[in-house]
């Protein structure tokens, strides 16, 4: 599903590389926590997966494709098989819940009939049935994040990438979001989640990958958060 072979990434004008010689493999259907302090390289790791950046050296394979050899015009096709969720939700404030989710399908040219069927389905799945016509501003943080997850999942991606999805939420709401991600993971979707939330990592007991100053320092199945911050 995902394979990093000796991947390093340095940004211009920065002495220290953001990632150094990272090698790892993530199988289909896994649930992986990505932990590490700020600046440890988590964001770079995720940006490489999305091909927002290219590795300086080494190879990144996602969904069986070598991203270094993927031409620019094929990147959108690749991203359609990925779903992404962020700490700040990134919803469109002037569109309803329904329209926000439908937007993701409209812009990749899905036929209207398919959109009309898929959107209510996924909203039901994330527990937002009955709130289709609300505006994001009328929803709680947890509900907004559910909309974002619905949007990420509506196209049934193989891989869901979540960058601190509970970073803006209180612990109780976070538990709800984690249950939802777990449910999505059980449908066979691989989930990679970068987080600072110790409680969640310790509770879920999933594979934990820890980065420190760009290096892979721990890769533990059924792991815990492991370090104090």
């Amino acid at each position, binding site marked *: 599903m995902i394979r990093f072979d000796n991947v390093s990434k340095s940004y211009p004008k920065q002495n220290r590389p953001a990632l150094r010689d990272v090698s790892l493999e993530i199988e289909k259907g896994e649930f992986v926590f990505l932990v590490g302090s700020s600046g440890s390289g988590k964001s770079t790791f995720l940006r490489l997966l999305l091909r927002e950046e290219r590795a300086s050296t080494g190879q990144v394979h996602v969904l069986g494709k070598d991203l270094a050899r993927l031409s620019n015009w094929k990147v959108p096709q690749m991203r359609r098989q990925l779903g992404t969720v962020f700490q700040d939700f990134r919803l469109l404030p002037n569109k309803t819940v329904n329209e926000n989710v439908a937007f993701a399908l*409209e*812009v990749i040219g899905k036929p209207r009939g398919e959109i009309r069927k898929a959107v209510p389905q996924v909203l039901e799945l994330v527990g937002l049935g009955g709130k289709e016509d609300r505006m994001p501003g009328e929803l709680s943080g947890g509900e907004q994040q559910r909309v974002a997850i619905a949007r990420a999942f509506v196209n049934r991606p193989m891989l869901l990438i979540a960058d601190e999805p509970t970073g803006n939420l209180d612990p109780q709401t976070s538990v709800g979001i984690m249950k939802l991600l777990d449910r999505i993971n059980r449908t066979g979707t691989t989930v990679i989640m970068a987080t600072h939330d110790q409680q969640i990592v310790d509770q879920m007991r999933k594979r934990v990958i820890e980065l420190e100053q760009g290096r892979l320092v721990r890769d533990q199945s059924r792991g815990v958060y492991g370090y104090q911050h």
Partner: protein
Amino acid sequence: MRAQFVLSEIGVGLRRNLTMTFAVIVSVALSLALFGGSLLMREQVSTMKGYWYDKVNVSIFLCNKTDAESFPSCAKGAATEDQKKEIRADLGKMTDLVQSVQFETADEAYKHYKEQFGKSSPIAGSLTPDQMQESFRVKLKDPAKFEVISSAFSKRPGVQTVQDQKTLLSNLFNLLNGMNFAALGVMFLMLIVALMLIVNTVRVSAFSRRRETGIMRLVGASSFYIQIPFIMEAAFAGLLGAGFACVLLVCGQYFLVNNWLVHHIDVIQFIGWDAVLAKLPLVLAIGLLMPALAAFAALRKYLKV
């Protein structure tokens, strides 16, 4: 491709940048109107050239008996019959150059002069036929070959001067061409202003829509799909501007040329509707494509896809 989605995005974008859109429309309209105007002007000049050059001759003025003091080439007095015969014969030999030769006698010259300046002119009143010059009016096959005639005849005994009437007209045409270049220069500046406005509009537009485009990128919308609303926005504004430019050109032809100039200047043949209408598709095409290309170039800089 969902046309309705793209169209609604364009509408939203244009309304959001209403003032900028207006500025783009006005500057495109003005620059394209100048562009079309200068194309028409050039056509006007070339029809005028064709019309006038067709009428002008090279004149070989012969010495008159009164020219002896004022022109060194005429020091030997008036041209003799032999000299005239010789010139006529030589002109007759230049068949590849000369189209026709007409001899104008002093009496004819006097008559033409009076026709042109009227009997009331004090000079015309004091002139007598024998003061006028005889001349050969030579029509050339190629008016540009004046030099050949000039060098062949200007030094001959009995010839006062060889005059190319084209040079009299060329001053006028130089003026018209100069005006044309000035119009093109202004057009060029307006065009740059229009392009800069478009680039800036796209920049503002890309910034105000960065949330949408960011999401589009993440969910895998193709770069074409992300860019097309911006490009269509610019193209739409440009097309509207080009439409106004066409209206300006048509109004110019109708009010300025057909209803005014034609009645006041009757020695010039003006270009007609066919010439004006033939320029409109070009103006519209440029108005559509140029802003679209400018927007596309601007997007490469201001919109990550």
